[in-house]
């Protein structure tokens, strides 16, 4: 079975080591906050100047002055702190974050990331903090469904959509696989049990290689 969105988030969360500083992009990556591994201190940063984002508040605890980058109410963990936007992006752009987990429209086998615009002239484009994050965090990983709803692969030879940043993505978590971006292109580290490698390849535009120690991708039911 392909993973559901929460399971993709769970899988990405398993790779977060104790003590890392992480920015979670809007959408699927934000769900990582709800499935962090127990017993690790993982510090979540939000572009709008929150270091140490905590879980969503209870209905009676909402403070509209405390929101995340997606403008949803959040809380602050003990040890967290506030900075203004300019300092927040100093943190982001200056390689102070260990990791940014981002969503994407497409990722290319050379690590190119496209996640800000489809180039549709009918809609005004919006970039937000995506470009700052993509060049600024020490490492970029992407959480994304393996294909669009229409079945078009999101893991590509080259991005068709306008780039967010060139050559920055190191790992991709999808509903079907965990894929590393290497100097030789996409390397499949894990894949779900009920799909064979040829079927996975068929859902991927760029060529896939199989890791020697290929593992099963699985996640608890949510």
């Amino acid at each position, binding site marked *: 079975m392909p993973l559901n969105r929460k399971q993709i988030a769970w899988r990405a969360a398993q790779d977060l080591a104790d003590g890392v500083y992480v920015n979670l992009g809007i959408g699927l990556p934000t769900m990582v906050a709800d499935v962090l591994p127990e017993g690790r201190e993982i510090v979540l940063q939000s572009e709008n100047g929150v270091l140490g984002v905590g879980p969503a508040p209870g209905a009676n605890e909402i403070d509209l002055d*405390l929101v995340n980058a997606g403008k949803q109410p959040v809380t602050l963990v003990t040890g967290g702190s506030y900075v*203004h*936007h*300019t300092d*927040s992006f100093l943190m982001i752009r200056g390689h102070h974050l260990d990791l940014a987990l981002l969503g994407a429209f497409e990722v290319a086998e050379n690590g190119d990331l496209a996640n800000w615009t489809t180039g549709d002239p009918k809609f*005004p484009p919006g*970039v937000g903090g995506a470009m700052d994050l993509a060049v600024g965090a020490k490492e970029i990983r992407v959480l994304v469904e393996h294909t669009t709803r229409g079945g078009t692969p999101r893991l590509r030879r080259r991005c068709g959509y306008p780039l967010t*940043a*060139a050559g920055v993505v190191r790992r991709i978590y999808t509903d079907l696989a965990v894929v590393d971006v290497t100097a030789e292109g996409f390397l499949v580290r894990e894949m779900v049990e009920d799909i064979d490698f040829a079927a996975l390849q068929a859902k991927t535009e760029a060529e896939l290689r199989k890791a020697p120690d290929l593992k099963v991708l699985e996640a608890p039911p949510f």
Partner: protein
Amino acid sequence: MIDKRVKNLADAVAGIKDGATVLCGGFGGAGSPEALYAALLEQGARDLVVVNNNAGTGRTGLAGLMAAGRVRKIICSYPRSSGSVVFEELYKEGKIELELVPQGILSERMRCAAAGLGGFLSPVGIGTQLAEGKEEREIDGRRYVLEKPLRGDVALVKADRGDRWGNLSYNKSARNFNPTMAQAAALAIAQVRRFVELGEIDPEQVITPGIFIDRLVEVPG
């Protein structure tokens, strides 16, 4: 005696000129000086260039200014959000200009102006559409674009507490763009939840020192 407090919103926004570049604080609802936006609508200045992270939601606040045809151009990082209906309509009709700037660069460009610098070399956007037309250069093997300072004629910001010198403190993530915008404009106007006595804000906790603020008005909530 220094007393930058003004009695009402009309006095707060008095003198803002047509064509002004207005730095507008807030990120979503947090730290958004809604009362100043309403006062600016009332005041009547037009042909404005608005700088904000987004492009307004609903039909009031920034969106109200746009709906009334007062905004010539918006400089922002993310114009589309749920509820940015007014902007989207104007954009489709070609009735508003858009300059799209990555969020951190938007803030850094305002800081650059505030700090009296002429520009900075940024790695953000290299190899993308947003670097097109910008001067590029390589330093120590890394490519950068030259970004220019972004200065406001006016800044409208929201803070939590403010004293008569204009010292401000903020609440939680409502800080966001406000401190930098207050520094980057010729005329900085603050809407504060509560006036406090001079000295009541701990000197270690003043986030915007009064030197950056020209007027402040009390608006509870």
